[in-house]
């Protein structure tokens, strides 16, 4: 347990769980998005940790992945927040509880 890789992985797991908990518990749509960002970041940390302590660090695979991940996350955050703003304009609320038009 005391290997550095394990510690980094534990941290990443913790961040992931915290992000998940927040996404599940908080009602505000923006806060849900924040949780999702946290989860993504935890995954990035995981990648970098494995790059540093794993096999074949010369290929720079981990770093590449994370670069792209960051790019995509940014795009996704932009679009998501635009959607939240659009929904806010329509329904006058950001509470995810209140938006249940898709109920079955």
């Amino acid at each position, binding site marked *: 347990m*005391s*290997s*550095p*890789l*394990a*510690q980094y*992985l534990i*941290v990443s*797991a*913790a*961040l*992931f769980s*915290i*992000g998940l*908990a*927040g996404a*599940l*518990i*908080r*009602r*505000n*749509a*923006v*806060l849900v998005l*924040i949780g999702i*960002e*946290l989860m993504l*970041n935890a995954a*990035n*940390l995981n990648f*970098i*940790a494995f*790059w*540093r*302590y*794993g096999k074949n660090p010369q290929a*720079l695979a981990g*770093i*590449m992945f*994370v*670069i*792209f991940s960051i*790019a995509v*996350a*940014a*795009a*996704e*955050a*932009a*679009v998501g927040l*635009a959607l*939240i*703003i659009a929904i*806010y*304009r*329509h329904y*006058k*609320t*950001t*509470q995810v509880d209140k938006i249940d038009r898709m109920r079955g």
Partner: protein
Amino acid sequence: MHWSFYIVAGLTIGSAIAAMSLRNIVHCALLLTVTFAGLALLYLQLNAQFVALAQMLIYIGAVAILIVFAILLTRSSETTGDSPLSLAGVVSGVLIALAAFVTLARAVASSALIRQASPAPVPASVRQIGQELMKNYVLPLEIVALLLTAALIGAAVIALQERRRSE
């Protein structure tokens, strides 16, 4: 492990927890920024300098600002911004997250990878990263460019249309 790791890790996790549990949304957003910063420090410790920089530029410089803007644009009369959830909901959410953490932790603990010796750090210069991008990862690069363009246009369209329709 160096004592700096524990401090940074603790900071990151603590601010993450706080970001997820504070009532004031703006405080949540700001603490998220702190979390991003802590992550950047961790990347530095992991010898991924470019990534740390990218993290700080993109996440703290753009995403966090975006989030703050979104919060400000969607504020209603309630400043707290969050109606209280029932206890059952909180507990069940926490339990699910806990389950996820336990699973991950157990996976880590029982894997063989962690028992191996840590190799020496490998330099990852900007030059190398650039070369990699242009040689092996050129296709993903172009696609990501396309994606970013689409995201830009899409976000603009979504935000713009609503305004036009409401007029």
